């Protein structure tokens, strides 16, 4: 089945005078892993903000399944099964790693207003948190304050928190930035594993990751998707080479 689970139809976003997203068109198929690449400042993160409800598009439509979600609140969009990570690490710095993940896990158990029972008694939450800790390889750090983690450990935590709510659609914004080779490999396998049966939209600068992980790639330049296709098609695309890959070779 390859119906689109997430669609952007002619989405525009301006900040005052600055027209950042200029009629972006994008289709994320159910069950695929889809990368968004593009030069710095192309608007990739802005696109994620628009999809996840942090920003509202100036015009255009964003469909999650059948539902137009533009203008919904972030938590509403999360409830519809879309979860995202942030390019700039966005965690609970003063809480322990375990607590960070547990708070992310708690949500799908619908216990945010429970005030009559100790959290220790929710054994399922505990078990899932521990499993997640193991998945992102932070079990040794579980009692450490999140602010004291190394940068790459914080990135791993960020991924863990994004996965915790069992989402249908996952948006990852440069999840591997700042990771070592070994950590990138591990994270790559982790992402591959946990996105089995889900749909993934990922922004990533590491081309090896993009080409080995993703089924399709979209190229965003100046707020417009100039090409979408399989890795081979994208590699062969002249406009992409000019706009993006070529630039990388120069750098």
């Amino acid at each position, binding site marked *: 089945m390859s119906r689109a689970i997430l669609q952007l139809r002619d989405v525009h976003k301006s900040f005052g005078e600055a027209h950042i997203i200029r009629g972006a068109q994008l289709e994320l198929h159910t069950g695929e892993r889809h990368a968004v690449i593009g030069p710095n400042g192309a608007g990739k993160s802005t696109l994620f903000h628009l999809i996840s409800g942090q920003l509202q598009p100036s015009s255009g439509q964003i469909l999650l399944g059948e539902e137009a979600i533009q203008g919904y609140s972030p*938590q509403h969009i*999360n409830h519809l099964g879309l979860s995202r990570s942030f390019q700039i690490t966005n965690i609970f710095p003063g809480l*322990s790693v375990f607590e960070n993940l*547990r*708070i992310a896990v708690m*949500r799908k158990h619908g216990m945010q207003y429970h005030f009559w029972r100790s959290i220790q008694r929710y054994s399922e939450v505990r078990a899932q948190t521990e499993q997640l800790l193991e998945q992102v390889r932070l079990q040794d750090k579980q009692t450490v304050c999140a602010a004291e983690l190394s940068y790459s450990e914080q990135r791993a935590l960020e991924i863990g928190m994004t996965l915790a709510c069992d989402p249908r659609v996952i948006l990852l914004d440069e999840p591997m930035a700042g990771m070592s080779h070994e950590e990138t490999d591990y994270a790559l396998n982790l992402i591959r594993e946990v996105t089995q049966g889900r749909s993934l939209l990922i922004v990533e600068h590491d081309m090896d990751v993009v080409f080995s992980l993703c089924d399709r790639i979209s190229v965003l330049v100046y707020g417009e998707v100039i090409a979408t296709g399989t890795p081979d098609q994208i590699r062969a695309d002249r406009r992409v080479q000019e706009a993006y890959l070529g630039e990388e070779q120069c750098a």
Partner: protein
Amino acid sequence: MKLTKILLAVLLLALLVLPAILPAAMVNAAIQMLIAALFACAFNLLCGQGGMLSFGHAAYFGVGSFATLHAMNALNGEGLLPTPLLPLIGALGGFICGLCAGWFATKRAGVYFSMITLALAELLHSLAPHLSMLFGGEAGISSMRSPAWGLDFGDATQVYYLTLGWVVLSIALLYAFTLTPMGRLTFALRENGHRLQFLGYNVHRLRVLVFALSAMFAGIAGGLQALNLESANYVLFDMRFSAEVVLNTYIGGVNVFLGPVLGAALMTFFGNAASDLTQSWLLYQGLLFVLVMMFMPSGLAGLVLCWSAQIRRRGWLAVIPAALSALITAGLLSLAVVFAIETLQRVFSQDYQALLIADQPWPAISLFGREWLPGALLTWAMPLLLGLAGLLVLKLARRQWLRLLDDEPAAGPVALRSRVEGEQS
């Protein structure tokens, strides 16, 4: 933490036998300490745990007081709500007002939040004298405690035990709350409300509920005050009380659960003791606040934790010298400051200035049970000498403290915090 539990049990025991050993006049001071402790603890749910600094929390305390007084007058302590249960009405009043005010205030975060709470409290303060139905105008309203459950609540001792019961129960509930899912979310709210939204939480609703819960417990404290004083007037809504709870809480330490309780109890105690001795209590209070914020931002509770960590690591004996010199430093420096302030205050007071006769030496002032001549060098050298001695001992204390810290993996405030709030599994 076994030691903590033992200490708490001892404290509770001491509070239980207190009225037997205290003179009757002091029992009332103890009641005020208990009420202030609960108020600060309730405030800290919002401020320290939820990360929302309210500058108008006296409003909910006051509403709790008035609500309780109205209930006292209406029910005469009969029926479903005998006298001991009346603070429930204070809780209800605080909760409802907290819901309404919180709904507006939590629309914004940070400074804007604080300003809205301030504005709402000031609004109430200026409206209250005109709403004589609700707040009894300038004179306020009063009532009488009715007997219930075989007790007549005629003397301070019975009121003390009633207050103690409510305060202990409320603080225990507030602590239990921090262990529940919603309580854990409250910490996350402080840390990063933005991220919570993207994890699927309704942050505004959560903030409003935390606000209302905090206001509810403030309302209980207000209700207890109403039971104790049997009266209230609009002065309760004064900005001064809102500021006081902020100061007490921060002096005690916002990142430790019992910190505000400690801060409020101590400050109320000293406030009571000092009001007979000095006219400059507000000045001392402000000074203390500034010093705590500058030199130990984690408050008195942070200090206690710091020292108890050293005791656990090194044993009592090794810590005693450093503790002793620290105490001497604190003593000398406070003495110097108190000496200077009190001398100046006395010399510049209007009463004293009226005594002066031109071309005559200024008469002596009395301080610490002695007479001091403003013309004498010693009077002014005294605070300087005391301060100097204090600074010298401070140097020693610092060296001893650093030696204690030696070969220790850096235990900064962050590490402290993670121990307090981290998962204790």
